[in-house]
């Protein structure tokens, strides 16, 4: 699974950092850096993070090479 954050929307509420600290990290006061590849054991945490995001900026999904060819 892959994740991408719409950083145009992100306002640094950092809920994702609490839900999935191994995937999402704050860089400074409100910049967000994240692991683009989501390990299997983190998928449910990233789902929670995506649901908890106040601005709904997190997308989790399969990459194109993962089945759409």
């Amino acid at each position, binding site marked *: *699974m*892959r*994740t*991408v954050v*719409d*950083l*145009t929307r*992100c*306002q*640094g509420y950092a809920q994702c950092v609490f839900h999935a600290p191994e995937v999402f*990290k704050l*860089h*400074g*006061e*409100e*910049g*967000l*850096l*994240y*692991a*683009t*590849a989501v390990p299997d054991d983190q998928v449910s945490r990233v789902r929670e993070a995506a649901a908890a995001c106040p601005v709904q900026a997190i*997308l*989790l*999904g*399969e*990459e*194109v*090479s*993962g*089945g*759409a*060819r």
Partner: protein
Amino acid sequence: MPDDLKDGRIVIVGASLAGLRAAETLREEGFTGSLTLVGDEPHAPYDRPPLSKQVLLGQATADTTELPMRRDPEAEWRLGVRATGVDRLAKRVLLEDGESLPYDRLLIATGTRARPWGNPDEAAMDGVFTLRTREDGAGLAERLAAGPERVLVIGAGFTGSEIASACREMGLQVTVAERGPAPLVGALGATLSKLAAVMQRNHGVDLRTGVTVTALTGNGAFTGAQLSDGSRVPADVCVVALGAVRNVEWLADSGLAVGPRGIACDAGCRAFDMYGIVTDDIYVAGDVSRFPHPLFGYQMLSLEHWGNAVEQAEVAAHNMVSPGALRRPHLAVPTFWSTQFGLNIKSVGVPTYSDYIVIAQGSLEARRLAMVYGYKGRVTAAVTVDMSRSLDYYKHLIETAAPFPPPPGAADRAIAADITIPSAVPDPSVLSHGPTVALTGHLPDRRLTVV
């Protein structure tokens, strides 16, 4: 008629962010016909912003930045194949392998590529990089991880500044050479460029402004550069961050309105031909497009923004499968972000479309502020530094053509929020890097007004 639009053959040339999101939207809107995506890179659509951040810092590898799908676009993917032209009469996209793909409607989303160093022999030296593709990101990350003595970054736009930031975070010595007076000045104007320069120097960047790089030297492998002030910078890695070039050459014989600033299209993303007649079967989205925007004098806007690629792709896809009366205009207010030297910089509107600014909240000294840009008494843009939650408010002011300086709004309004300062946006031709936002005027390549 609407039923016909939901069927048929759609070809999308460009298999990156805009192409993928358009493909998903077409299916979302009920398109049931055949859908083919053509991409010259041999990879599934991937995200580029992490390449100058997480990937360089070693927090993600370049081969794991594929974009997640919102839904399976059920498309045929032709990856690693370059499109070489469009036959508009026969309605076919020509491919480099000699094949051609018939279309009923075509979406062009070929984006941009990194502007290469001017001297091809110097550019070919080991240790000289640009940063745009996954291969670029992987190669540069590997080289930085090996611990070079010094990195030279040419160009202090957003990409160059982010690379310099990553280098410092990794403890690497870095020199930034910029022809303009300060980093980011072309995008943000003089006042915020002062903050950008202070941030670079406080983080230990050897920042050289008002200079050009006259030669890259080395015998097969890069060893340093000559600057126009006569000095020499010894370095073992060089990153050329001189902005982007639009991928339009393949359309030279297409009869479309194609130029160095992109392909002109109407507010509904339909491409113009070279006579200014709008097509109804060819659409454009993302970095390769130029489109009119009512908030900025209906000038043609060229953007290199992630958010614009997504929103314009969605509008283009909707219009491709909708009858005239149901089509939507692409009117989104330009928005972008950059993370560098521990600061989160976000922008809404077009900061270069301005004559004056005010610091509405916060201060430069606090490294936390909201700056509002105005043009002829109207709010046209805002930039926040570590204050992104205020941005939507200013976006609302821009969308409603609020007066400038803006009326009191925030509880933490700065003391001098009504004292205007010239925005001092320089002529883009004085900068090393290209503009990421260009208002290209009504004559595409003659009246370049602002960066």
